[in-house]
């Protein structure tokens, strides 16, 4: 899934606390949001418990939440689950790292040279929308069911996510800052290091966060469809073995990992960009 699940792209970036009253209102609400979130999760779990119990959906296809949780506990006790999680995270991490490194390198080079940007934009615009799943048959033929197949999908999908953000970021460089750097006789490398890179960084971080989510979904989908080892493979195993509760338990695990990754990256983003107060509009 190339650009799965974006979130708040395009932040209009309002300064904090516009008028006193909204600032007050949100401040008053802020510490109290988590009970609502908890309530939401509980209601969600309750619905999943009740719907199969009432027979609205046969238990054979959607077991009650309590049985999913029991299966989850059982799975969590077995090393097989953790091996699978490890495999998935390995594919995720390697794929993401390669994609980010390649995208940042390529993006900074292309973005800093107007000719390259003009010459490559049509090709980028052509390659970017090619859905990564189109590569599944190719990946299977070339790499079989090893981790490489999944990696290929992960890298392809997350690469564009980051590249586009890098290009946006590099183009967002303030001309005045660039002129200042020139007037102080900074060389090309110095300009990239001191002007381009800091400007692009917030965009890159956002791109990496979006790519991290995409990479996870693709890693699991890849394992699921291709059959390379990992959580996705475990899910399809559970499914083909008719172990429905286990399958749902594994789905819950994927969801939790996704939430965790998102949380961690948001935290990193906040930490890293605490100094960056400028209003930024992301790739719209």
């Amino acid at each position, binding site marked *: *899934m*190339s*650009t*799965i*699940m*974006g*979130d*708040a*792209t*395009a932040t*209009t970036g*309002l300064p904090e606390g*516009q*008028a006193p009253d909204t600032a007050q209102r949100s401040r008053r609400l802020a510490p109290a949001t988590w009970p609502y*979130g*908890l309530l*939401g*999760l509980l*209601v969600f779990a309750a619905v999943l418990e009740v719907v199969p119990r009432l027979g609205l*959906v046969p238990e054979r*296809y*959607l077991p009650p939440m309590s049985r999913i949780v029991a299966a989850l506990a059982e799975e969590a006790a077995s090393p097989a689950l953790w091996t699978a999680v490890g495999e998935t995270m390995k594919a995720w991490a390697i794929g993401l790292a390669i994609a980010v490194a390649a995208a940042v390198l390529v993006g900074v080079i292309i973005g800093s040279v107007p*000719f390259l940007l*003009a*010459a*490559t934009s*049509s*090709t980028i*615009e052509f*390659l*970017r*929308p*090619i*859905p*990564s*799943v*189109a*590569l599944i*048959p*190719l990946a299977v*033929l070339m790499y079989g069911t090893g981790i490489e197949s999944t990696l290929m999908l992960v890298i392809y999908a997350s690469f564009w996510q980051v590249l586009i953000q890098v290009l946006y970021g590099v183009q967002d460089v*303030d001309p005045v800052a660039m002129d200042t750097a020139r007037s102080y006789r900074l060389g090309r490398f110095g300009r990239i290091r001191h002007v381009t890179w800091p400007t692009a960084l917030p965009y890159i971080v956002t791109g990496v966060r979006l790519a991290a989510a995409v990479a996870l*979904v*693709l890693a*699991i*989908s890849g394992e*699921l469809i291709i059959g390379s080892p990992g959580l*996705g493979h475990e*899910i399809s195993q559970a499914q083909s073995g008719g172990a429905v509760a286990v399958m749902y338990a594994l*789905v819950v695990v*994927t*969801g*939790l*990992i*996704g*939430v965790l*990754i*998102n949380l961690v990256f948001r935290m990193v983003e906040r930490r890293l960009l605490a100094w960056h107060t400028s209003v930024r*509009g992301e790739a*719209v």
Partner: protein
Amino acid sequence: MTDILRRTGLALGLPLVLFVVWWVTSAGSENFFLPPLADILAAFTATWTADRFAADVLPSLVRLAAGYAIAAVLGIALGVLVGSLPRVRAAFEPVLEFLRAIPPPVLVPILMLIAGIGDGMKVAVIVSGCVWPILLNTVEGVRAVDPVLADTCRSYGIGGAARLRHLVLRSASPQMVAGLRQALSLGIILMVISEMFAASTGLGFTIIQFQRSFAIPEMWSGIILLGLTGFALSLIFKFFEARVLAWYHGLRRAERGRS
């Protein structure tokens, strides 16, 4: 005139070079899985005839359009609702974060239960994946409505439907469009994935069939067609975006120029 020439040159130059490189390097390829480009192109014209287009590509596109449209309406409607009510948002956020982290393919069995195995299921798969980026971006957009504009509306007594139309939807539109764009590429992917289940027609289905029956040049031609489809859809989207967000891009340019 020279400018147009230069621009077309830049736009076509690299693709042309890549094409030639692919052609030359693959010519006489002995590798079964990397056939010569000439073979792939021959397979392309032979495979994607008008009949096949009507039988396999069109149904895919119709399902995509339906799923995408439903996801857009659903995502925007729910997004506006959730985004405008802070408590509802607080209650929904963790569940939404969780749901969107689930890879759509694992939901297919459940969706088959609810929507059967026909086109309805495939549309549902597309909706189930596309709705999240639209929904979450809309929530963010609605949240970020400029308080000064909100006050302006209040003081001029602009409320209800007029407020929704002139303030909320418009002000959140950059984020909505961002979500819609993500949903589009996602939709194409899910279109393919949905055709891996209980299908007997479709672009994705056909490509997988080619792969399974080891018809490699045909498979490549399918991948290329899928790429072209994605490209064409993104062009259409760009056109649409340029019209809807003309004000936004103008505003951004103006802000940048001024600073």
